[in-house]
């Protein structure tokens, strides 16, 4: 099955990259950009039946740094045959 993990900075943690992109968007003339935050998408192909607890464990032990980041897990369904 395919699983997509979205890792993003916790609210309140300054995101220097997001801020730089925000400035660049304004520099390009886009109006009304209130805030930009940058995260990370990790897509994994896992054996069918991998438990939710195991995926949580992967996120907490490696994929996200729980000091500064939150994560969410999205299941994209079964792996399609090649």
């Amino acid at each position: 099955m395919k699983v997509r993990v979205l890792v993003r900075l916790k609210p309140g943690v300054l995101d220097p990259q997001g801020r730089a992109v925000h400035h660049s968007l304004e520099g390009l003339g886009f109006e009304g950009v209130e805030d930009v935050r940058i995260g990370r998408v990790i897509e994994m192909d896992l054996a069918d039946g991998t438990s939710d607890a195991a995926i949580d464990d992967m996120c907490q032990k490696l994929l996200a740094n729980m000091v500064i980041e939150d994560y969410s897990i999205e299941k994209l369904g079964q792996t399609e045959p090649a």
Partner: protein
Amino acid sequence: MSFRAAVITFPGSNCDRDMAVAIEQVSGTAPLRVWHGDDALPQGLDFIALPGGFSYGDYLRSGAMASRSPIMKAVVKAAEAGVPVLGVCNGFQVLTEAGLLPGALMRNAGQNFICRTMPLTVENNQTLFTSAYEAGETVRIPVAHHDGNFFADEDTLDRIEGEGRVAFRYTEPCNGSRRDIAGILNASGNVLGMMPHPERAIEDVLGSSDGRRLYESVMGSLVSA
């Protein structure tokens, strides 16, 4: 007296040789070199150093991959047993990712890689890494990093400040670090992580010899122990 030290090298470490040279110059004994893939440390170590660099190309997060490499289980165990552990720059990032130190090191607030000699205040000289410094002394030690912006929540910051665990503080803003923190200790005081590079400040011809006393402090703590 012989000083039995080890320098850990990860793929992408690039200050490991500088660290080894600094230890040898100050202690007179060349440190042992340990590869990240080893699963055991040499016996009877007096000191473990995690060098700077870009381990694993900073993949995922700085220090994230290295902190999960085989040797780190042994380093965590040694740290818990009281062996002095120093992490410099990427080594500091590895120690936070490994959970040996609180907080995290984020991208510098100004987005720039910062490479300059910084003035630092010695906030606590009652530690095994700083006993050869004067309390409140200003020392000059170079920084060279992209991800040195120390972050921890306010409660954690208050706690480590209150426990005297801020060893070094930038005397002027450097990289956006909370409370200008440059180096912190673990609760038992035998693990120090710092972004500035003491190994690059061991003789005047390098621009500063203020880093020397950090190694002298560690050696002195062994003599007096």
